[in-house]
């Protein structure tokens, strides 16, 4: 059914297939009075990853990259590890050194907090419910947001292990996920592997 919208009792009432409206369709209230028009937007951004590109490439290669401040003069963050990957140290603003932390993540990743979300926004690509997890790694100063694959519900403190969408990667953050640490490779969802 094609998309239509009208105004009933002061509220927009939508019918049909969402996100497919044609432009300039009149929106009328229950008395036929014109209230407005449909105004769909379809745009494509050519978005640059800049200095973070190695991180997103790394996911497709089955590796997890962080960065480290190696500036001895940094008063706060010398040797601090950052993931999310920070191109520059937030304290001294010197360029950080990319560092492969896959092995550290395999050994020490655990859940700091979590949320199971039954809903999503439009154009979501993840399977619902989404099991959001915030992952701590030993020796890392930040707490990475990601999601837990499979049917197991997360718990605070749960040991987890990173998995990567190495087959047909999307080169987005969704190429990284986690599974309970005792998960066998054969049980991973299609497209995902352990680190390479």
């Amino acid at each position, binding site marked *: 059914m094609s998309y239509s919208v009208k*105004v009933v009792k002061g509220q*927009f009432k*939508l019918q049909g297939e969402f996100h497919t409206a044609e432009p300039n369709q009149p929106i009328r209230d229950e008395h036929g009075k014109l209230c407005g028009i449909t105004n769909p937007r379809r745009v494509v951004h050519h978005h640059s990853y800049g200095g973070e590109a190695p991180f997103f490439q790394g996911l497709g290669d089955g590796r997890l990259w962080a960065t480290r401040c190696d500036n001895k003069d940094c008063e706060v963050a010398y040797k601090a590890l950052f993931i999310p990957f920070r191109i520059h140290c937030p304290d001294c603003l010197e360029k950080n050194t990319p560092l492969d932390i896959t092995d550290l993540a395999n050994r020490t990743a655990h859940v700091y907090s979590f*949320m*199971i*979300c039954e*809903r999503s926004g439009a154009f979501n690509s993840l399977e619902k419910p989404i099991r959001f997890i915030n992952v701590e790694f030993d020796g890392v100063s930040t707490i990475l947001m990601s999601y837990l694959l499979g049917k197991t519900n997360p718990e605070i403190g749960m040991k987890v292990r990173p998995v990567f969408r190495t087959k047909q990667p999307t080169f987005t953050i969704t190429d990284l996920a986690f599974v309970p640490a005792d998960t066998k490779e054969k049980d991973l969802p299609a497209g995902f592997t352990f680190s390479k």
Partner: protein
Amino acid sequence: MIRFSKRQLKTPRFLRDVYLVTGGQSEYRRAFPEKRTEELCIDAFQDAAKYIGMTPQAMKKYIHTCYYGHFADHFGDQLLGEAVIHDRLGLDPLGNIGVKTGGATGGSTIWEAAKAVASGYSDCTLALGWERMDEVPTDEGNNYISCAADKDWETPLGHIYTGYYAVMAQKYWKVYGREEESFRRTLAEISVKNHGYACHNPMAQAPMKITVEDVLKSPVVAYPLRALDCCLMSMGASCVILADKETAYEMCKEPLLIYSTAGSHTLRVADRRDMEIPLLPNETEETYKNIDKEFPGGERYPGFTGFLAARMAAYYAYRMAGIKDPTEDLDLVELHDAFTISDIQTYEDIGIRPYGKGRTYVESGDCYLTNPKTGKSGKLPANLSGGLIGCMHSVGATGIMQTVECMLHIHGRHAEIHGDAKRWESYGKKKPADWQDLQVKGAKRALAISHAGVGSHVTCTILMKPDARLDK
């Protein structure tokens, strides 16, 4: 930043006193298919002029610069929306600027307008905010809101901001709430209170007489939060006029002193690093000496259990305004109750209660106009407007609405505005037969907190009668 320099902790200072002259509001609703945004903004502007017995034309003659709070251009599908509103208000060719700090946009707009007066650049400023959130279906709206998270590291994860936010609620629920049923009921009580207070506010979007059981039976949004734990999605506008002393007293009889500060913290909760708790004037190192033993899992600060931006906004504001203890020195507060749990977190961030003890502000009855436990006046009533849960969250207008509501109490004019039957009728509503005057008797000082997203920006606005000032 996890270590502060002395200069960064300087107490903010206005070069001259700044006064709130007046404020106004439109009605708030989920949708206004029959109105353009500018109509709501003009409603708020006219309301502010009427409050001090002026015509809009006369009030405009005082304004020198304008500050517009409007968070989401994409929701309204209009870049430079500020220019549209400025033109429709007939304020060209005065200088104007748009302010965008997520949910804190309203508070930040006041912050900017106040600094312009304080510096002497302008003698009178307009701070006006609005949001148009009714043009897209809810799931596309959720997609838009998720764009306020980090577009590469968070947004692709479900395009659902609630999910990014609720991980913090979960941590608080587990560590400080200890997953106790009694704590879950305390959360529900906040929703009952705020929806209930909204019943006496003609502008409010969601007046409801509900019970704790109703909240607990409402659909789960993100456990433990349910639909009735969450704020509204709204349309509407609000504004305030600020001025220096001389101009303020020329425009009205009872201008109020205003102080405004801001704090910030990482856009991604992922980037929060461990640090020491910055202490408020009513706290000492002793206050948090045993917090890790009392609340295992709460060792990390702010972790996911506190909002550093709110703590810093209060840190600056209390020192700036001479507040020693918010519960003793303030008469009412309007807090950013985006969710019931974040309301409790805010009690702790701004020192109404120490970290971990926020729930006692509700459980003691201190947060009510009339304490249900004692039948006497609540010590520090909160969100008598209905807050974001009961009144509105029209993002760019929210922090301004809170400030206007505080103003009404300090002026002792709450009933005049909220109890006006004609105002109810003008919104197509009937004044309830059991309408109550929620005026805080003898109110002299009030505070409003305006908060963005996962705590990226927070402002603290303090209003007080000039003869009740504490900073001199």
